[in-house]
């Protein structure tokens, strides 16, 4: 059980860092909100039009693709570290995993999502 102590301490430090920095900002920072300050910043001019506009779907798809390959990266790191222990099976498993994602990438490429029209 004691093996998990460093993990708990590490989680504590992460949470403490987040809480302390936010609390310090709220306590020490002189918050003086007033109308002009809370207006949305548009290079100094009055905001024109609303931002709540239907965006083209291209933006969303690019974000989606990023998520997929980000998850891929998350799995690659620990795999790379422990590759020596896994041996040949590890490589085979990762190859299958990556090829599935490559399938998704090929589909995205053929659907011309990446070219910005």
């Amino acid at each position: 059980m004691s093996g998990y102590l460093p993990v708990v301490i590490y989680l504590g430090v992460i949470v403490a860092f987040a809480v302390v920095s936010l609390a310090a900002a709220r306590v020490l920072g002189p918050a003086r909100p007033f109308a002009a300050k809370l207006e949305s910043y548009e290079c100094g001019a009055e905001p024109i039009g609303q931002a709540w506009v239907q965006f083209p779907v291209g933006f969303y798809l690019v974000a989606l693709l990023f998520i997929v390959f980000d998850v891929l990266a998350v799995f690659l790191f620990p795999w790379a570290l422990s590759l020596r222990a896994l041996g040949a099976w590890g490589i085979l498993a990762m190859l299958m995993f990556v090829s599935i994602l490559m399938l998704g990438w090929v589909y995205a490429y053929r659907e011309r999502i990446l070219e910005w029209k």
Partner: protein
Amino acid sequence: MTSSEAASRIELDYAGGERLTMNMGPQHPSAHGVFRAILTLEGETVVGVDAVIGYLHRCHEKLAETLTYAQYPSIASKTDYVAAMTSEFAYVLAAEDIGKIEVPKRAQYLRVVTSELQRVASHLLWLGTWCMDMGGALGGGATIFLYAIRERELILDLFEALVGARLLYGFYQVGGVRYDIPAGWAAQCRDTIGLIEQRIDEYEDLLEGNPFFLARARGVGVISRELAQDVGIAGPLLRGSGVPFDIRRAAPYSSYQDFQFTVPVEPDGDCFARYRVRMVEFRESIRIVRQVLDGLPEGPISSRPGLKSVAQTRIPKGESYARVEGPRGEVGCYLIADGSAKPYRMKWRGASFSNLAVLPHIIPGHKVADVVAIMGSVDPVFGEVDR
């Protein structure tokens, strides 16, 4: 019709995506000063530009009617404050043209040296800010900016030794120039331009081998030859669109005819062409400066020596339009004198005003990121746009 109604009137006809009206406002890192473009976007493509200028309108032309011929040149240098020498040059040339005031040969040569050095300094600032605008694509944003400003400081040291000021000088006066070059200035000038010449080759290797830079500069912001002349853009923009027009060659003033230099012309009129034209202009200006330093004649530096005689310059009745090839194009001064100590009317033809007027014609259809690249390649200076 308040702005909210204007916004609600956005048509939904195009590909389902609504149009977003966005403000590339006066305070914008790539605005090169106080320029506000109200962009109407569909996704990433710009479909409409409404340029709003006038945020730096400092009443130059009205002030010119209240200041005498000796007072105004130092204010004139604030129109194109990145190239202050060539701005004063136009006003002084117009006044001398009306008054038929003769400028001694040495003063003409000094004027050519300072204008060409000013062109190199101004192009250095252009290169720096343009590459910083294109940001991360060129290796971490401020790389070229820090190099270019480092070189520009060397030229500002030369001007500080000559005039005492770094950016805005009162060097030109009606009838000649105010200061003569101190001892050792010529040698220091030769070293500086020699150093800058090698550094320019470094910048070219750094940039032209960079695929990001080529992708962002080639084929972006194409100005056709016909549109260029129709809107009246001048200088590197005009020569970048294939029109071989340079005032120093077409109508040589202040003994430019004594020097050999080539006028760079690029046919295809996009950002890369303008970049090529300016890089060649670096070397041509350095060549001119060398020729001037070799052939600098002796003699007086002003036909009206002493500040008193300058202060009493009376320009007889008449009018004239004098133009100078500034780093951004044709800087002109249309002067109407009525014989008193102050001009009756002074119209300042700023090169950047016309160069900026071409933007609403070429920006629609580009991406938002290209707008930044086009703004940088047009290189407007807003003292000259808003006057």
